[in-house]
């Protein structure tokens, strides 16, 4: 029986040393602390395993697994990917392959409140651009950036299917309807944005208290490939 893929990757990352000056640093290779405890807690793993009977292949559990991990940790770090891959018995590259396609999965940490502003046609006609500009101005960040204190991230997306209430903004899980530029201040201060206060079924329940897990703090160091900062660095070098 071959080693699980995640284990192999961990080992590989340990063996890479920068011995010769001509060796270049491969930014795509993660720097992982071998002694770091696993990122995924047993509760999270158990929740992912709960999805196995639903599908014929384990790979099909990948999207639910990524949702669960992102809900628990706030983002999907390189190490979390390796562990998911080991759990689902697929290659880590398969996980990256899938993650990189979807806009909803984040490979680096985001703010506590993620603001999704719609920029599609209905919202643009109804004044969505003004709302977006106001958000940028108030937060002092551009699209796809996070504030320095880690409180807010701002992203734009195409149609959120709330066109009858255009322009709309989603903050975490709450859809704000008919937002006007002058509402933005109130909107940012709204404490109800954190999570939906409606009874949940236990399938995608609020995550177990893994956010305070020491492992999740480590994960910040091993942010992935292809983030905007990486690209920027590449251009500058």
């Amino acid at each position: 029986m071959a080693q699980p893929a995640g284990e192999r990757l961990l080992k590989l990352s340990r063996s890479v040393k920068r011995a010769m000056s001509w060796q270049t640093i491969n930014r795509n290779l993660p720097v992982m602390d071998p002694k770091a405890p696993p990122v995924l807690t047993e509760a999270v793993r158990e929740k992912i395993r709960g999805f196995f009977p639903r599908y014929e292949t384990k790979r099909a559990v990948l999207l639910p697994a990524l949702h669960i991990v992102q809900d628990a940790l706030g983002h999907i770090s390189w190490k979390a990917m390796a562990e998911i891959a080991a759990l689902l018995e697929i290659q880590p590259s398969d996980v990256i392959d899938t993650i990189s396609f979807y806009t909803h999965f984040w490979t680096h940490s985001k703010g506590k409140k993620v603001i999704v502003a719609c920029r599609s046609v209905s919202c643009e006609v109804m004044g969505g651009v003004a709302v977006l500009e106001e958000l940028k101005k108030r937060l002092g960040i551009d699209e796809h950036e996070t504030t320095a204190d880690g409180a807010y991230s701002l992203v734009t997306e195409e149609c959120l299917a709330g066109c009858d209430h255009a322009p709309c903004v989603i903050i975490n899980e709450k859809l704000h309807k008919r937002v006007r530029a002058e509402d933005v201040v109130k909107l940012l201060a709204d404490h109800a944005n954190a999570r939906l206060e409606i009874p949940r079924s236990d399938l995608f329940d609020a995550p177990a208290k893994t956010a305070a897990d020491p492992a999740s703090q480590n994960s910040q160091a091993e942010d992935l490939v292809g983030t905007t900062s990486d690209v920027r660095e590449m251009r500058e070098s």
Partner: protein
Amino acid sequence: MANFEPILLRNRGVTGSTSLKVYESRGGYRAVRKALKMTPDEVVEEVKKANLRGRGGAGFPAGMKWSFLPKDRTRTLLCVNADESEPPTFCNRVLMETDPHQLIEGTIIAAYATKSQIAYIYMRVEFHEQFHIVQRAIDEAYAAGYLGTKIFGTDYSLECYVHRGAGAYVCGEETGLIESLEGKRGWPRIKPPFPAVEGLFRRPTVVNNVETLSCVPHIIERGAAWFTGIGPPHSTGPKLFCISGPVKKPGCYESPMTISVRDLLEREDMGGGMLPGKRAKAVLPGGASMGIISANEFDMKMDFEDPRKFGLLGLGTAAAVVIDDSIDMRVVLRNMARFYGTESCGQCTQCREGTAWMHKMATRIAMGAGRVEDLDVMLQTARNMGMMPGLSICGLPDGATYPIETIIKKFRGELESAIRAQPAGRAKRVLSVLN
């Protein structure tokens, strides 16, 4: 037709319409009991007779789709397409948040007719509240014995799961949806084999839209003849129409497919006319991918056939967005081009490159650095990309072609004069920033 009694939205506004108790008290789950007494083939035959055309955009008859399944299959899967990402469509959202049990009942009947063992509801991730509503309804149905093993005391068993997407427009395409369900990138597959032969996990698979399945219980309960009696012969049954933009009452309205765009915009029980001080200049009548109509074409009928006479791709999702005369057409052009540029999955070269270049050109035009020749180049790009069917794996480039082409053709005068009115030196400044 002024007082059309809603069928799909009959529970909208009823207190507690999302609960099983209220749904059953209003006649719910009668149709599924009737269907389970019929044979699966009889159910398929009934839906075929009703000529229920798919509501997801393409208008393919649902009964026909079901009958393409191979006869000797052992395992079949049903996918419900709730990945409503076509701007500016929201009728599935309204259906799911007002009447989730209607969808579940339709899903059970469709699964029984296709002899499916599992039904996956693929829902886009931005539907947070709707996910919880549907999931709660499914839990209720399981508890009542309407889902699970040996449902309604028969020998038929059905599992139903919600699978959440992750923000990709192309996953609303049926093979893209299947790939995404398998945990891969949502890249549409080359057809054939069609999903009916080889789909999810290489099993025969049926993919139907939420609204299509919500029609099914009513067909079974009241019969195909009743269903074909609604609307014109080629576009039978009730349909949900969405309207958004600067109108008095934006929202989702139900009607037979006999109304025109003007009705949807101006009728008191629908859009209710424009907001004070606004004048409609154009309407994107069927979702972004279908194209645009100008103010003198508002008498277009919203059915499956008429839009083609106006140079549109089809009815699409019947979701209209009104563009008033304060909006610069260059902005709309760029918005459309950007949407397809962002959402192209990147498999087929002409779509990946074509949408990206159209996005670049449209951005330049919108920033005030356009040239009149750009419009011709965009037209040419659009035509080469999507007008010849069969060039690409999925329909996205066709969908990207029509809005660009119709906007440029129908509003060429406005675009050209806007480009000519650009202040001298502007283009140079913009280009220095862009490059």
